[in-house]
């Protein structure tokens, strides 16, 4: 009975606020927005706690195995993503209370519709409906990104974001059409029954096209170029949902479609390759940034690569690891973005070098930031730690992917800790203010002011949740992942109204092994951060070779990120072609 509310409630609240928002007292409008998001979170949490449900809208049940209406097919993974999204939106709503000088109910409206889109996207069991909610989410996200419409940066970022994502979405839609012509159905489970065992070139080409739009949203190499431009320029409260839930939603769609619809083992190799490339590109680019939000944005790319590697092995172990990783990463990354937002609010800058030592004014932000950095590198206890362990375990047979995943954890953790050391402890020499490669400081949204409770409480709350997420029932996640990949059992539940038994969870990695691994990555991340900060004190014989490798590597990668939308769409075309060719012509 709860199923429709995560979509309906935020939408009604949004329409109400947009229609009447400027006539209502500001407090009341804020309360409505926050209340709607909180109730949505509650509904999703109840759905998460229950068994998998199938809800047919309009009461239109399938007839003799043919789905006619639209269903929500809700399992722990989808409901979990919806809970995460509503928590992040809640944090964003709180954070934005004092973030804008002017009343921002339009911002709240955009956030609420974004939430409805995310919820519908994670719960639906219908392929075209998935596309519709994808577009709801996208349209709201474009608006959020361009919200600071007085600066060129956000507008330019929004253009790149909107053009690449829309182009990707239409390619997805053409793939959906091709699948529809083969199956005569739009329900995922129904379609699965029609294509099971017939994976000819039509299905493979369509799978590549359908995945493209979601991979663009997930910022997987070579579709990642738009992300940093958009995430770095969007208002901070929007960033936390973009990085914490929207990117992950793209990956969720890939996993869900593979599990419930395609069941194509051929996807493993191209997805793993893309995951590895994403880890490495994200890690290098993240480490090379000095603009804090850009740094965090590129770290999101690296982590998206890690999650994709977990999904790409197409086994319950990797998938459940990816699920846990998404939860932990979303909470930690959101808290880090909020810390960056507080720095911008208090110190009016977000440039790592310019902020050298100035963070001492706000030590508590530093504590939160450092904690976030450690957790991002894989320190226990978070769901991210357990997810990381499970992904490593699942990647046993793929040493290159294991290496890439480790590099991503170390480099992103080190980048955050380096920034933390420089800003809050004043470590390292003051760098000459060289005109940094294409990053400009950001215009703050408010006058410099003390940090209000509505900003630091959400950040602390999210970190506390991240630590609490370590105690999520991992067997539940494991069996939900096994279930997600079992298209047959989905189909019997959706089309035949059977309630199949939950499969047993995959074996877990021994805790000691995970702890040893975490000690290694966190230790290396701290060491790397310190080495970078104090590199001037190292002998030249060590610095020379490192510079000889690093400078051309980072330089050439940076040169590819031109920020021109034409380049990004050219890469997109190449990416679709590569993905499609690797499936069809292998």
């Amino acid at each position, binding site marked *: 009975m709860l199923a429709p509310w995560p979509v309906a409630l935020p939408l009604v609240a949004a329409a109400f606020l947009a229609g009447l928002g400027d006539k209502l007292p500001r407090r009341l409008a804020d309360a409505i927005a926050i209340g709607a998001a909180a109730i949505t979170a509650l509904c999703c949490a109840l759905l998460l706690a229950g068994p998998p449900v199938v809800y047919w809208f309009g009461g239109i049940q399938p007839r003799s195995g043919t789905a006619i209406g639209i269903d929500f097919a809700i399992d722990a993974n989808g409901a979990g993503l919806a809970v995460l999204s509503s928590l992040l939106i809640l944090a964003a709503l709180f954070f934005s209370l004092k973030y804008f000088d002017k009343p921002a109910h339009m911002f709240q409206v955009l956030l609420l*519709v974004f939430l409805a889109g995310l919820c519908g996207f994670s719960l639906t069991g219908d392929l075209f409906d998935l596309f519709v909610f994808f577009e709801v989410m996208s349209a709201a996200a474009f608006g959020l990104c361009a919200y600071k419409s007085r600066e060129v940066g956000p507008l330019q970022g929004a253009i790149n974001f909107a053009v690449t994502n829309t182009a990707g979405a239409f390619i997805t839609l053409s793939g959906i059409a091709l699948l529809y012509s083969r199956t005569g159905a739009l329900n995922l489970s129904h379609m699965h029954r029609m294509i099971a065992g017939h994976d000819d070139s039509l299905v493979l080409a369509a799978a590549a096209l359908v995945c493209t739009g979601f991979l663009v949203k997930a910022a997987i190499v070579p579709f990642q170029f738009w992300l940093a431009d958009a995430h770095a320029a969007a208002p901070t409260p929007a960033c936390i949902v973009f990085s914490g839930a929207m990117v992950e939603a793209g990956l969720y769609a890939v996993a869900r479609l593979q599990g419930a619809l395609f069941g194509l083992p051929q996807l493993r190799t191209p997805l793993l390759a893309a995951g590895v490339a994403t880890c490495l590109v994200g890690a290098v680019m993240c480490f090379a940034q000095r603009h804090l939000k850009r740094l965090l944005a590129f770290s999101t790319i690296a982590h998206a690569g890690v999650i994709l590697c977990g999904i790409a092995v197409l086994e319950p172990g990797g998938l459940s690891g990816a699920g846990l990783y998404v939860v932990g990463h979303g909470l930690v990354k959101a808290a880090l973005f909020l810390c960056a937002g507080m720095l911008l609010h208090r110190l009016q800058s977000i440039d790592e070098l310019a902020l050298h030592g100035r963070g001492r004014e706000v030590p508590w932000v530093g504590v939160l930031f450092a904690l976030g950095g450690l957790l991002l590198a894989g320190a226990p206890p978070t769901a991210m730690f357990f997810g990381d362990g499970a992904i490593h375990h699942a990647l046993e047979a793929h040493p290159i992917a294991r290496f890439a995943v480790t590099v991503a954890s170390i480099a992103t953790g080190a980048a955050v800790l380096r920034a933390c050391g420089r800003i809050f402890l004043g470590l390292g020499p003051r760098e000459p203010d060289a005109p940094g490669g294409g990053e400009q400081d950001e215009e703050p949204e408010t006058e410099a002011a003390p940090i209000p409770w509505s900003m630091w409480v959400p950040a602390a709350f999210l970190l506390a949740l991240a630590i609490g997420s370590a105690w999520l029932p991992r067997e539940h996640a494991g069996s939900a992942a096994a279930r997600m990949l079992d298209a047959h059992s989905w189909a019997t539940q959706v089309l035949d109204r059977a309630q199949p038994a939950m499969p047993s969870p995959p074996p877990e990695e021994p805790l000691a092994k995970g702890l040893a691994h975490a000690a290694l990555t966190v230790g290396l991340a701290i060491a790397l951060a310190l080495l970078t900060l104090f590199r001037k004190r190292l002998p030249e014989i060590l610095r020379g070779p490192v510079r000889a490798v690093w400078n051309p590597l980072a330089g050439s990668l940076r040169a590819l990120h031109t920020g021109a939308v034409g380049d990004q769409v050219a890469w997109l075309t190449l990416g679709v072609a590569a993905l499609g060719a690797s499936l069809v012509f292998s």
Partner: protein
Amino acid sequence: MKARLVLFGIGALGFAAVWFAGARKLDPMGSYHGAYGEILNAVSVPERHSTNVVSAVNFDYRGLDTLGEEFILYISVVAVAAILRKQKDEEEEDEDEAPTQLREAPDSDAVRLFGVGLVPVTVIFGLYMISHGSVSPGGGFQGGVVLATVPLVVYLCAGAKTYLRIAPPALAKGGEGLGAAGYALIGCLGVLAGKKFLENVVPLGTPGEAWSAGTITLLNLTVGVAVGTGFVELISSFVEELLRKAEK
């Protein structure tokens, strides 16, 4: 630019190859035989009393898609207004700028007469389309856009001031919220009746008549309101500064 074109060229060739490999396995155009469409064509008149099957699909069998679609439109209009809005302090700066030409009523009587004649025809046509969505081609979306052209005709034939009189911004905004929320609230009717969200719980009426097909007609109406006011607001957002001057 050259490197970009080379990149795109390779990608385009690959895309064409993948597409060709996939599409040659499709049935040729004209040989559709999917079960989904056949069932819907067979059941929508007896079950929903809607002689326009496309409407029945959009507003009933796949009504959730249209809820999403409605909010895509809605949120885009909200976002456009938020992006193009001007801050108070900037407007004062703009006062010094070169005067932009305000659209006054045209001198020609012929144009005015044409407008006067066009408006009622458009209104009737739009309303007909919205109300007969479950019977014949057309519906809330198409009718809504047709209705939205009325203020535009007024703007062109009678000037910005008259435009503001018939399409005041507050009304457009309120109508939009009402239309969008209305769709979701009609969806809730099903839940109130103890059934599922978006269930068609309103009496169905006679097939072929305007007010048949239960919620399909009601939903068409809300979409008509939302789309009509939404397009008016879109247009207003683009000519905002001209309208502001007319207000003064």
